[in-house]
């Protein structure tokens, strides 16, 4: 067996194991490791406020970051394979913008109850993501070129942004403030009470993606070969787009439209593994996505005294170099040729 493949999964797992406690230790309040452990184990001998910080703020943030990274990375991988386009991803192809528009309709226009992040924003984000995915799918029938389809996605993203700007213009100031903060991206907006729902939804849809491993592999040779292999293209397209859109929507509803994780992480996983076979690529992407989410969360709290950096200020720093490397070395990278 090729040693690179299990080694990649081990390294990604080791990164998660290292980064998760680091996220619990880092923050504006210095809490000794022993007290973090006490807070986690429910030992009441530590300072009560430290227990609250660890259990109610840092643990939900770390779990949210790991699951968001995993969900976005899987979503990006599904889109890259489905559209046969290495530059596809939830942020580039307008899916995040569609989710944002759905959330804007709830938060800014007050449809479905108003400003709080909850069930209505989740439904809004999901509806927005699926609407854009459906539109892209319909366009993909007529627009055969992957590059042109990417441009269509970017244009759809602009249209969503335009609609969001209009909603912003007419919305009350308080709603605009809440929406702008949400749009910067953060992993702290999942409350301890919401965490089980967030975790259940992101894990459920991540797990569902595993049922498309065979179809995704068949799609690597193109849609005609996939159809000849017995893959029902309409059913598989609908299923993959629903799972991919749902993963993006779940994260976007709570954490804002987070860029670059979905685009860059599948490439990191492919380069590390040396294969596009999804039985390896899907778990590697999921683990690398979780590790990237945790790394982003850790970097976001490093300024400590100045507060928490917006996630979208960090993800381009991690993602853009990867994408530039991919573009500049396309001829040497086997999966482009």
């Amino acid at each position, binding site marked *: 067996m090729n040693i690179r493949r299990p080694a990649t999964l081990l390294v990604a797992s080791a990164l998660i194991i290292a980064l998760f406690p680091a996220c619990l230790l880092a923050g504006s309040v210095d809490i000794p490791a022993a007290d973090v452990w006490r807070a986690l184990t429910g030992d009441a001998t530590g300072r009560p406020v430290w227990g609250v910080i660890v259990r109610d703020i840092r643990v939900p943030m770390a779990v949210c970051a790991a699951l968001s990274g995993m969900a976005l990375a899987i979503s990006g991988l599904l889109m890259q394979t489905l559209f046969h386009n290495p530059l596809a991803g939830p942020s580039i192809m307008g899916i995040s913008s569609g989710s944002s528009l759905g959330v804007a309709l709830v938060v800014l226009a007050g449809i479905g109850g108003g400003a709080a992040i909850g069930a209505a924003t989740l439904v809004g984000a999901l509806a927005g993501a699926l609407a854009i995915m459906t539109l892209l799918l319909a366009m993909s029938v007529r627009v055969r070129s992957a590059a042109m389809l990417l441009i269509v996605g970017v244009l759809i993203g602009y249209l969503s942004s335009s609609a969001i700007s209009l909603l912003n213009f007419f919305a009350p100031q308080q709603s605009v403030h809440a929406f702008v903060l949400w749009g910067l991206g953060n992993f702290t907006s999942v409350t301890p009470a919401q965490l089980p729902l967030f975790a259940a939804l992101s894990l459920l849809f991540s797990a569902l993606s595993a049922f498309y491993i*065979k179809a995704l592999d*068949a799609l690597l040779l*193109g849609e*005609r070969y996939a159809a000849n*292999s017995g893959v029902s293209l309409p059913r598989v397209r609908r299923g993959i787009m629903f799972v991919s859109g749902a993963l993006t929507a779940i994260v976007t509803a709570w954490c804002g439209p987070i860029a670059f994780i979905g685009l860059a992480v599948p490439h990191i996983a492919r380069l590390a593994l040396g294969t596009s076979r999804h039985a390896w690529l899907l778990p590697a992407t999921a683990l690398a996505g979780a590790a990237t989410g945790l790394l982003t969360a850790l970097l976001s709290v490093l300024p400590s005294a100045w507060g928490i950096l917006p996630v979208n200020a960090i993800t381009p720093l991690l993602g853009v170099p990867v994408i530039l490397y991919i573009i500049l070395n396309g001829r040497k990278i086997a999966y482009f040729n």
Partner: protein
Amino acid sequence: MLELRNLTVGYDGHAILSPVDLTLSGGIAVLIGANGCGKSTLLRTIAATQLPVEGHVIIDGCDMHATPLRRTARMMSMVFTDRTIAGDLTVGEVAALGRTPYTNVFGRLGADDRAIVSDALRAVGIDGMSNRKLATLSDGERQKAMIARALAQSTPLIIMDEPTSFLDAASRIDTMHLLRSLRDDHGKTIILSTHDIAPALAVADTLWVVDRTTRTLVHGSRDTVLASGVMDRVFSSPSVRFSPSALDYR
């Protein structure tokens, strides 16, 4: 084994060829005709990826357009004209994708599947390249990998839509020899659409010629169709004259 019953192919209810009735019980059928005459439409309809305007495609008693896709995938495999970009899969992994109709939801290969894939690679003569990335192969070797994928699909019928169009002359002839071996050594029935008339006629048992002027498919044994004069009608022009005697390619 393959039966076309009153098969009318076309788009949106409009026929582009007159109804076809024929039976193909084995060997290599070579489909030829000018560009845009409906060859690919006919192949897509036979392969059940396009609905017929009318009529039926029957393989071993099953109507292809009323059979679940997973089952049709066990009856016919395809090789397309394009230069396949297959991610960074190895030749062995590409051939293994031929087992897709037989594997579980995660595409896991059993011991039997692995043996079939190895046999397919050996039959095509690229078993020594199993661990090489498809991206590192020449165009001819790539197309052999796609033929190995089709062979690993274990179907009685293989449909090839202009599989040699981007290959150099040596690879084109090499591919024709390979098709002959698939017919003779593996008992495959092959439908080959091609513009490489000379090497294809050298391996053809049956000829299907699309006559665009009459919108008919002329079919029959190689020698009968050659003698019928249809080739002259389809391929000759004031400056070009089709000559069967020039096809001494065996």
